């Protein structure tokens, strides 16, 4: 181990975080902490201070000699060797219990990390299930990601891009490597550094805190996945009884084009039945349905499943009833984004209805312009509650109208929503990879919030087809009635305020739009100025006329002809009376 790795135990370093996890997860009655790939053993003394026995394992003689000189146990072993390596460790342990295994900054330096972790898993199980604490640098730190965007990959002697690293870990890669080796994460104490050792040159726009570019890139990275400012992952793991690599692989069903979310509280079975009917009748059937039973009592869940099973098995088999408890209107939607298997995600509520080409149009446009939000037109129709015998039904009372614009207008959507939820489909990757979520703190407009975010990221393609009907309830059923106007305004303001805090990735053409609006504003201002000027002139003319009238009235001839005017008025009144 080169001397450059001879790090001391600093308070602001990864080491105290490892020791904290050891304290939290160690086997209480056992004493030995095995530090694999220990190097100079930066945590040896703090472990000893906890009353535990530190034992360093490494292949580097210098490092082990250093540890021995400080009075700690060592084992010279290569733990990628399942037989010889583990034998040496077991011999060293003798009949002492193993409290924890640690491994700090080892996995990024070896090409056989998986083998080491699997051997440690075997050792752990043979000792009754000993926890493992790992510390691994995070290659997806924002500083590294931002610099890659400007073509920089700066190796350094130590740190995130240490020039001796041979393996790199993202959150996903770490999960994959550990779970395949039989470890399940049970705790985390990541070491965060907003400005890592890669934060140079600090004045470059992608890195400099507060620049518009930095804000945009950081919000994308931060929203997309955990770990934007994690310097090292510090995680605790418990051994799985059956490691993932030994478990029977479960065949993944084929990915459908679309996942359809249907929220229901099982209060309107008649309209839910129609919504499902309209899905069963789609011309393109490449979709699955998540029937999101939100706060539905357990005994009603069975009835929902029974209702679905009334349909042809080919359709019913693609409907999953997902029970969701608690939270507001957005909560089941987030549950659905996590469970969705489709490429795209669309929603239709249990009182809305699709035309036969609802899925077909989404499919056609998504295939033509992959990765975009697909938007169709939505018709609106007013309905009101009506009793169908013993069943709660409804009646259509208004004409079909198409009040929403044919094409998506981002500017208008930054003022208000013009796209009902059943009119658009969003790539699932927008949720799973870009980190977009339905805001569960919003009482309403959660769909508008997501649509605007998705539109900014993905752009929108319009199908120009009317493919669904949004039902407006002329009764206390509708969300419009259920949620007061105040709530709508509050939610809208919240969405807009959050957008206003962010750097928005506006699409090409935005400058032209700005120019158009700027010219329109100038024209209007010019027209207003003209009108003000005309009004002023009119006022002056009126004042001048009034003055002239006044002068005439006070002139001598006006006063002399007064009796004649009185007589004329009287004659006119008499004539009108006769008529």
């Amino acid at each position, binding site marked *: 181990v080169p001397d450059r790795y001879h790090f001391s135990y600093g308070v602001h370093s990864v080491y105290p975080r490892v020791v904290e996890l050891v304290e939290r997860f160690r086997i209480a009655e056992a004493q030995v902490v095995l530090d694999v790939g220990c190097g100079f053993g930066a945590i040896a003394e703090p472990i000893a201070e906890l009353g535990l026995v530190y034992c360093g394992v490494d292949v580097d003689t210098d490092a082990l000699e250093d540890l021995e000189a400080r009075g700690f146990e060592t084992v010279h072993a290569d733990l990628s060797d399942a037989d010889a390596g583990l034998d040496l460790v077991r011999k060293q342990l003798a009949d002492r219990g193993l409290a924890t295994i640690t491994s700090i900054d080892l996995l990024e330096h070896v090409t056989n990390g998986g083998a080491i972790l699997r051997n440690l898993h075997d050792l752990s199980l043979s000792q009754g299930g000993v926890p493992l604490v790992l510390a691994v640098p995070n290659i997806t730190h924002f500083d590294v990601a931002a610099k890659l965007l400007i073509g920089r990959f700066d190796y350094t002697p130590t740190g995130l891009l240490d020039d001796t690293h041979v393996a790199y870990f993202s959150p996903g890669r770490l999960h994959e490597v550990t779970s395949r080796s039989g470890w399940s994460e049970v705790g985390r104490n990541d070491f965060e550094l907003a400005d890592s050792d890669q934060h140079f040159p600090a004045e470059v726009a992608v890195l400099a805190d507060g620049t518009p570019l930095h804000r945009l890139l950081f919000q994308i990275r931060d929203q997309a996945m955990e770990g934007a400012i994690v310097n090292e992952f510090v995680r605790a793991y418990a051994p799985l009884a059956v490691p993932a690599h030994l478990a029977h692989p479960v065949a993944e069903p084929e990915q459908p084009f679309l996942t359809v979310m249907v929220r229901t509280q099982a209060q309107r079975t*008649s309209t839910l*039945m*129609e919504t499902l*009917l*309209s899905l*069963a*009748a789609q*011309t393109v059937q490449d979709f699955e349905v998540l029937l999101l039973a939100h706060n539905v009592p357990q005994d009603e869940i069975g009835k929902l499943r029974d*209702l679905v099973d*009334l*349909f*042809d098995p*080919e*359709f019913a088999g693609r409907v999953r009833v997902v029970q969701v408890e608690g939270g507001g209107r957005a909560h089941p939607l987030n549950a659905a984004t996590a469970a969705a298997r489709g490429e795209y995600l669309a929603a239709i509520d249990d009182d809305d*209805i*699709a*035309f*036969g*080409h609802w899925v077909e149009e989404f499919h056609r446009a998504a295939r033509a312009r992959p990765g975009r939000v697909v938007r169709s*037109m939505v*018709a609106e129709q007013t309905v009101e509650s*009506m009793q*169908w*015998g013993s*069943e709660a*039904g409804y*009646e*259509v*009372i*208004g*004409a*079909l*109208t*198409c009040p929403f614009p*044919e094409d998506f207008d981002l500017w208008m959507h930054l003022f208000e929503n013009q796209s009902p939820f059943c009119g658009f489909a969003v790539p699932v990757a927008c949720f799973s990879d870009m980190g977009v979520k339905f805001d569960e703190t919003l009482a309403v407009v959660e769909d508008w919030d997501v649509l605007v975010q998705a539109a900014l990221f993905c752009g929108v393609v319009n199908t*120009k*087809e*009317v493919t*669904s*009907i949004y039902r407006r309830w002329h009764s206390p059923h509708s969300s419009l009635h259920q949620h007061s106007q105040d709530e709508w305004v509050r939610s809208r303001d919240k969405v807009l305020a959050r957008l206003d805090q962010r750097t928005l990735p506006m699409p090409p053409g935005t400058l032209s739009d700005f120019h158009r609006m700027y010219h329109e504003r100038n024209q209007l201002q010019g027209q207003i100025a003209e009108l003000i000027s005309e009004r002023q002139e009119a006022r002056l003319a009126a004042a001048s006329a009034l003055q002239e009238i006044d002068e005439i009235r006070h002139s001598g001839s006006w006063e002399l002809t007064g009796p004649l005017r009185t007589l004329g008025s009287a004659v006119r009144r008499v004539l009108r009376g006769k008529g």
Partner: protein
Amino acid sequence: VSSQPADLPESQGSPSLWIQSVLYRPEPGQFDRFVQGLRAATALALNRGWFRSIKLAIGDCSPGKVLGYEQAIELGESLERYGIDEFEYLFFNDNLGSARGHNELLDRSDGDLVLIVNPDVYLCPDILLHLLTPLDDPLVGMVEARQVPVEHPKAFDHLDGTTSWASTACVLIRREVIDRVGGFDGDSFFLYCDDVDLSWRTRLAGYRVVHQPSAVVFHDKRLTSTGGMEVGAAEFYYAAEASLMMAWKYSRPDLVEAWSKELLSTGNAEHRRAVEAFRAREKKGTLPPPLDSAGTVAQFVGFNYAEHRFEVSA
């Protein structure tokens, strides 16, 4: 859907059902979807004992066979697994039109009840129960399903469902009604209004025609971007022809005259062609004898055959 229907009189037991549909150049996949909806609805109806037997007849007016021999056999076998007793597929080798096509099938029918359906519909699984329930009343002759997503705006009585006429997009009819009124008037109606005419003759025979809102059928219609209905050129012709025929057949020569004038002066080429065709029949004396001279059942409200609750589109 869990309840049994308020049955027909017990002595009669569950009725037998004859289902029929007439195809004309269906869109790809349309017939498969029709069958999928149908088999779920019939399977439920048979499992719950609402019907003692169900037979299905398909008449094909398309230029070429929609089902080949093997496909028809295969479909019959698959329907049998869903409990359908008998499946008949008749290729007419001619575009007979809706009314004549249905009459051909009605001639073969033998159920207590007849369900007439369009092939571009998808039946809601519980539809047959809802259609059956109003037939507890022996004076109900026809029960019409509610169409979605575009609901027909015809007015109906909110208590007993009574309405002016029933659409054959999906309607359940007593066999005895067919026998008494003699099926569709295929000589007068090719594509439209054959169902209005059948409904009015059913009412003239003393039966009620009922709209059942809880019986739901998905009818695959589309809207234009302004919310209007998509209409093809042929539809202009047949709709105009049928309107004139309805006015004539239900003793409203005044409307024949007024509509002819309007179609000729403000209509399109298809409209004018329809007026000419009607006048040609008038000259030849091949128009049907007028009915309902007292106007007891016929309702002409504008160009509609019932009061409407709302405009289809604004």
